[in-house]
């Protein structure tokens, strides 16, 4: 019929699936690619580490303490040297990966979920409720995280789970504020109005229309936060109110190696390096995400990618 329009298909180009496009964009950014691979390795190590090297990591040998790194006579597991109890650092770092990443991941998930939920609530509900939530956020914000740590760990005892709780509490406001701000903006958008005109319920609008739009921002934020939480965790361990031995995290390893820094630098150097590389990768990845998920800046990546048109 005459109507099936003159403006035909140039605009209607077929588009590769989301995954494929992300893949292309990842290839386009060398740094991000390396970062992603590195993190992948870390995750794998976190999964298999304890099974693989759990034994070696706790086998003590007071004779071979503070063994220097790159001493190939002792076998590959010793290449990073040994700690104050003669345990191979390499094994310990690998085993610690699990706790370190688990704590961080747990904390990020906890804070992201609860923060986002509260944010949606604050952004979409009555001004009063919103006010209450925001005040709550302020309180948490100005609540010294160390105090939270001491309180929670004193009352609930120090365990990996509780540490997650501690770290997540302090991060909730970040997600809360971001989400709320976004919601306030998005709820005025046309397609939300359109949904209202169709008679969509509040929940439907919130979760079907608003949340998906906020999501990219949150993912980027979470990636960045993962790095932050890792640092926070290590800081807590450093002050002696984080994870406690015999559990190990990289942060704890640093603080244990600290006193040897002048005469056995490797004790805290390797875990320090592990933290830096991981956080760096996360930062790189989140930067890449920020661009990749932003339709306005995306071309920067897609241009470099294998052009297909």
């Amino acid at each position: 019929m005459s109507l099936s329009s003159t403006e035909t298909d140039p605009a209607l180009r077929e588009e590769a699936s989301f995954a494929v496009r992300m893949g292309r964009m990842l290839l386009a950014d060398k740094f991000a690619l390396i970062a992603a691979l590195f993190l992948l390795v870390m995750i794998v190590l976190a999964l298999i580490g304890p099974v693989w090297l759990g034994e070696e990591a706790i086998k003590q040998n007071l004779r071979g303490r503070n063994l220097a790194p790159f001493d190939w006579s002792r076998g590959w597991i010793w290449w990073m040297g040994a700690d104050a109890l003669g345990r191979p650092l390499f094994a310990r770092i690998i085993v610690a990966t699990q706790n370190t990443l688990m704590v961080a991941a747990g904390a990020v998930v906890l804070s992201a979920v609860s923060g986002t939920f509260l944010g949606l609530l604050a952004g979409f509900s009555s001004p009063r409720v919103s006010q209450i939530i925001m005040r709550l956020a302020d309180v948490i914000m100005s609540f010294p995280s160390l105090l939270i740590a001491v309180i929670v760990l004193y009352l609930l005892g120090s365990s990996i789970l509780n540490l997650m709780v501690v770290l997540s509490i302090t991060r909730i406001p970040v997600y809360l504020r971001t989400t709320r701000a976004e919601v306030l903006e998005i709820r005025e958008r046309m397609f939300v109005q359109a949904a209202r005109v169709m008679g969509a319920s509040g929940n439907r609008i919130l979760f079907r229309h608003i949340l998906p739009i906020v999501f990219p921002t949150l993912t980027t934020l979470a990636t960045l936060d993962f790095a932050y939480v890792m640092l926070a965790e290590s800081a807590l361990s450093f002050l002696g109110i984080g994870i406690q031995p015999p559990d190990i995290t990289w942060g704890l390893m640093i603080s244990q190696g600290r006193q040897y820094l002048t005469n056995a630098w490797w004790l805290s150097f390797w875990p320090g390096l592990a933290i830096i590389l991981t956080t760096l990768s996360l930062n790189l990845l989140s930067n890449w995400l920020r661009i990749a998920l932003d339709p306005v800046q995306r071309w920067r990546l897609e241009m470099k990618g294998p052009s297909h048109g």
Partner: protein
Amino acid sequence: MTRSLISGALIAGVALMTALSPVMAASGPIKIVLPEEADLLEPCMATRSNIGRIIMENVSETLTELDVRGKKGVMPRLAEKWEQTADGNWRFHLRQGVKFSDGSAFDAKDVAHSFDRVMSDKITCESKRYFGGMTISTTVVDDHTIDIKTQPAQPILPLLMSLVTIVPESTPMAFVREPVGTGPYKLTNWTPGQQIVLETRDDYWGKKPAVTKATYLFRADPSVRAAMVQTGEADLSPSISQLDATNPKTDFSYLDSETVYLRIDHNTAPLNDVRVRKALNLAIDRKAFLGTLVPEGAVLATAIVPPTTLGWNPGVKQFPYDVAGAKKLLAEAKAAGVPVDTPITIIARSANFPNVTEIMEAIQAQLQEAGFKIDLKFVEVAEHETYYSKPFKEGRGPQLVAAMHDNSKGDPSFSMFFKYASKGTQSGFSDPKVDDLIQRASAAVGDERAKLWSQLIGYLHDDVVADVLLFHMVGFARVSERLDFKPTIATNSMLQLSEIGIK
């Protein structure tokens, strides 16, 4: 490698001392860096190490003082002499012509007031704890004579007097921030968080010390403290990490009167069984720690008090490292129906002493080697206290509390009651014979006293197997080469500037 250096340090150190000490004594200011700041400078709190280190015998003096360098025992300080009267009380004859740093003259009334302050319930003076369980009254005989009556009689009162700092009568019944004392130094500057400065005063009764001015700095990090002496930012750091003690010219190790042990809670199975307690002791390879996680110079402990203490019992031999024996004992206990498989928790305090983490992890490993089920739990100081002292939590599992006890006072009475008497706040058991011995020993004097104490020590170690005694620790001091100073067992709690010479 560290090992050889340390011993080197000792030898060289000693040589240095003997060689150089008598030579022409210069004088001048010095800087001392300490691990934690004194949050108070209250004389009656001087028995707390971080305070005592600064003011004890420097600003505030005591009637008597304990000779920690030689074997002289209790020596006169503000009291010239003292005697025990027939009724078991004590009369002290005070030094004359002594002035407080505020100019007022020192006399018996000041002593009386000092005592009232310590005992007062308007302030919580720490020194009070040494007089627990006794009532004390003072009678001023004349300006320079004072009688001190204790109920019950207190044979070691002269020693106790080395813990009571004398303040002028005018001192209020509240914590003071500017301590006034009769000592060779007076406080001239205190900038919280930064520094405390002591300077000599001209009207001191005794001989003028070489150090004219001492500036105290505070750094939490041991390697930083060591570095500061190395870089000349400080002249003396009484406690540095063993690892940094690598320079024989400047670094000295010293027995620091701290004793590390695992307090056993006898009230819960399986720890209520002596075989199990023995097994614990046999399963730990104490020697392996020496020169590795614990400094070379450390001494394996057979008592909770250091060897320099009255009544220390050389006859008591520490348990050998005997895993087989431990296993055997466990088997026996098990056969006798003792639930030896119940997991036992070691509770330790993070940053309690150097390498605490590693040491505890090692001990855990060794005990597990012998067939124990051991959990390890690190807690911060406040929480540790709740495990260490009574009242103990109800329904707790079997626990070993790792702790460090300090007794540099030369007499076991400061330890035994608290750690072993049925009523002792950190005592993990109750044994009538122990109670009896403690009571009699505290009342006795002279050789009798010594005999009873060593009897107790032996009984606790061999028969009761009261706890797992580990080490008498050594500390390390870094002393700038321009100083002439050798740390003593008391250095932790008292650092007499007058004993420091300058080359």
